[in-house]
């Protein structure tokens, strides 16, 4: 490839793999005016052609660290100590102008959300060209370089494409443009801030593959920031785990996975759901009349058809996972069942009697027995009402005025593994996980038979997710049936007995989790499983994840 020749020509021999091209020492960033340390005393090094995975949950300071590698600090933050050295130059010693010249060439940045990081008012050509900012390059050369990079990230390189605006691209294409923009200047170091968030797994797999290939081909040192341990384990050569602003563990990926030394790393690793298990209590095909039976359901918005001929059933005490990527129609399906989406035809039968379309046309008893938990706990609680009132509101409406309201609230909270003292709090006084527990408490207060969970863990950190899943399994053991909607195939095996795979509004595969995971029949399911990053854990105690007792640990996946 001509690319290799070109690289050697301009690199001057300084690009041999193995030398540390990025080194950070004792870096501390503080917030103003509180002087709180956002990251403290962080040291990392990255060699050419390798990728360092920087893992941490929300609030760990990983984004702040990523930005400080480009000598950029968000408003009201500043670097108070330490040094960042990129390709032999200390960023702190450079003038503003010097830093600017380094950006894009020595160190480049790929943002979390390209949709907001690409300028909506500028054509791709302009945005790609200026990333090159090399005055010595002629217009034709620059153009050629831009086309070359676009080709490398598998995007069209014709004039028509270059003349487009960002909003004319799909999410995956936007992220590829962002990658191209970062690599166009042949940087020594590249910082990737959760670049695959919001992409579905197939697109994510392609983007990750592109990133891996590009860093290797260009001999670039990559810093990949992510909350997703599975992605990092798949991609990175080295892992640094961040917790509360500090790097608590650093090491080669295989070593960290096999022998995590810090307790937080251990916790993080065990919280990641395994892709292949036989599922929660494997049983045969359930028998008898199902609790919920959906048959021949077609749904849509206006003239757009979203769901086509859906057949799903849920038996008492059973958890059925509804697996699908964004746009597959899974939320429409769950909302139709809950009575929040009315534009559907077909049969929805609950406990032998049909459910009307729309919650307002159902009986109070039906509404009581089917409850819904929403995706984003930050939006699902009324910020102006106390937890007590949020739980009692639906209860009063559906069950009636309780004789002892305090007991109802306390019991509901207890079932959601919260103490009764939470009753007096407002939502803003709760963490994300606590909010989701309150949402669950609100739903279970009326003692429903069926709980519909719409992506209820996707807004939460992975360790919190593990706790919520554990809670749901407890509820299921008490006899509640669950319809668990998710895009995360790894979660499916950890909670559900049966799974229905939804793809473009059609159920392409349905069956017991163990069977579907180990021997998927449909091509789409196979692709989904293949594209989902996964890793093996071998350290002592690893099987104890998601509250799964050691004897439940399946042998199949390991």
């Amino acid at each position, binding site marked *: 490839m001509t690319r290799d020749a070109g690289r050697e020509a301009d690199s001057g021999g300084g690009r041999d793999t193995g030398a540390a091209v990025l080194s950070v020492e004792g870096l501390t960033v503080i917030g103003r005016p509180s002087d709180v340390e956002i990251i403290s005393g962080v040291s990392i090094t990255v060699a050419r052609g390798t990728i360092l995975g920087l893992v941490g949950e929300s609030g760990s300071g990983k984004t702040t660290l990523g930005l400080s590698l480009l000598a950029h600090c968000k408003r009201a933050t500043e670097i108070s100590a330490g040094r960042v050295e990129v390709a032999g130059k200390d960023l702190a010693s450079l003038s503003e102008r010097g830093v600017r010249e380094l950006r894009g060439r020595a160190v480049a940045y790929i943002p979390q959300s390209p949709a907001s990081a690409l300028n909506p008012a500028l054509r791709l050509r302009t945005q790609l060209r200026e990333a090159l900012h090399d005055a010595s390059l002629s217009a034709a050369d620059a153009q050629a370089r831009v086309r070359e990079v676009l080709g490398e990230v598998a995007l069209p390189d014709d004039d028509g494409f270059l003349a487009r605006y960002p909003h004319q691209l799909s999410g995956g294409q936007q992220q590829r443009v962002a990658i191209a923009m970062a690599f166009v200047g042949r940087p020594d170091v590249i910082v990737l801030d959760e670049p695959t968030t*919001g992409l579905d797994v197939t697109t994510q797999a392609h983007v990750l593959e592109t990133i891996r290939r590009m860093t290797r081909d260009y001999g670039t040192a990559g810093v990949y920031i992510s909350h997703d341990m599975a992605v990092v384990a798949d991609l990175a050569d080295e892992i640094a785990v961040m917790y509360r602003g500090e790097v608590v563990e650093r090491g080669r990926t295989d070593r960290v996975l096999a022998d995590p030394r810090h307790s937080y790393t251990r916790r993080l690793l065990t919280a990641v759901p395994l892709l292949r298990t036989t599922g929660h209590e494997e049983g045969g095909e359930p028998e008898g009349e199902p609790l919920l039976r959906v048959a021949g359901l077609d749904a849509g918005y206006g003239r757009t058809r979203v769901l086509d001929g859906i057949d799903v059933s849920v038996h008492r005490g059973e958890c059925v996972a509804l697996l699908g990527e964004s746009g597959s129609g899974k939320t429409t399906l769950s909302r139709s069942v809950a009575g929040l989406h009315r534009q559907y035809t077909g049969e929805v039968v609950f406990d032998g009697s049909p459910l009307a379309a729309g919650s307002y046309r159902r009986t109070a008893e039906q509404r009581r027995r089917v409850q819904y938990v929403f995706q984003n706990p930050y939006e699902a609680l*009324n910020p*102006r009402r106390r937890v007590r009132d949020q739980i009692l509101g639906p209860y009063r409406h559906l069950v009636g005025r309780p004789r002892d309201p305090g007991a109802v609230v306390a019991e509901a909270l207890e079932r959601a593994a919260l103490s009764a003292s939470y009753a007096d709090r407002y939502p803003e006084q709760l963490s994300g996980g606590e909010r989701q527990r309150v949402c669950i408490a609100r739903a279970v207060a009326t003692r429903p038979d069926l709980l519909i969970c719409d992506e209820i863990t996707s807004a939460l950190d992975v360790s919190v997710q593990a706790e919520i899943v554990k809670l749901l399994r407890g509820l299921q053991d008490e006899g509640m049936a669950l319809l668990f909607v998710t895009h995360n195939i790894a979660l499916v095996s950890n909670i559900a007995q049966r799974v229905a795979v939804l793809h473009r509004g059609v159920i392409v595969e349905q069956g017991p989790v163990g069977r579907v995971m180990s021997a998927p029949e449909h091509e789409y399911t196979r692709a989904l499983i293949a594209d989902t990053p996964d890793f093996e854990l071998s350290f002592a105690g690893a099987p104890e994840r998601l509250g799964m007792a050691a004897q439940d640990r399946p042998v199949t996946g390991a």
Partner: protein
Amino acid sequence: MSAPVNAGVEPVTVVPRGRGAGLFRTAWGFGRTKVGAALTGLIVLIAVVGPFVAPYTPTEFVARPFETGVDGTLFGGDNRGRDVLTRFLWGGWTLLLLAGASAAIGVAAGTVVGVVAGYRRGWLDDVLMRVGDVLLAFPQLIAALLVMSIVGPKVWLIVAVIAVSHMPRVARVIREATRKVVEQDYVKAAEAVGLPRWRIMAVEILPNVTSPLLVELGLRLTYSIGVVAVLGFLGMGLQPPTADWGLMINENRQGMAVQPWAVALPVAAIAVLTIGANLITDGLSRAAIGIDRGVEK
């Protein structure tokens, strides 16, 4: 989206957090809110207490027209020789009452329309908003003048016209706020439970649009003061011989060069009042932005 919601720069939050201060408490934290409250308070005090401490009655003749330096008068006489100070002290409460009433009615009605339109969507939303657009095509003052010129300047009409002209503006803002709230899942949760629509509007939506509501109230109060005053100034508000700040300016502007007090006093009062009201509003809106976004600013 699988991103943790508050991924970002802030350090790990200490749980449990205390409940954030309310809108008023946050607003009070800004210096300008305090200044605004002091200014507004001063003028309200003058308007309310004024009639009781005025040296003369508002229609008593104590000097020659536009005469200054008359014994027993602090600021001299007005265009017809009545005591300027007395008329100033008497002329505020009508303005406050009319402005307060029209702002309150307009905001209340606009809020109802806005919440209903924002929540029910569909044809009702379209109809309400299109009617609002037609009303919005009249600049506020022009609408008031048109009606006044035809029916004649009547007190209830002033209040009604200003209230009606506020309505579509308030409705637009509240509708926007409502739509944001309706997007939130707690409204859907209430729907799934089958809570009656009116209860959803009253319990789930209304409490969550109070921040823009209060800001709107402040803003509309400021505008109402302006419109009531300008109507008086144009001779289309309260009629002689009522003592009214707007009317006073109208009556005495010809003699502004010889007797500036008769104009300067009401002008200063109106200016201070509107500035005060707007400072409070600004404090509220800053607080509202901080509260609604959940960030300290």
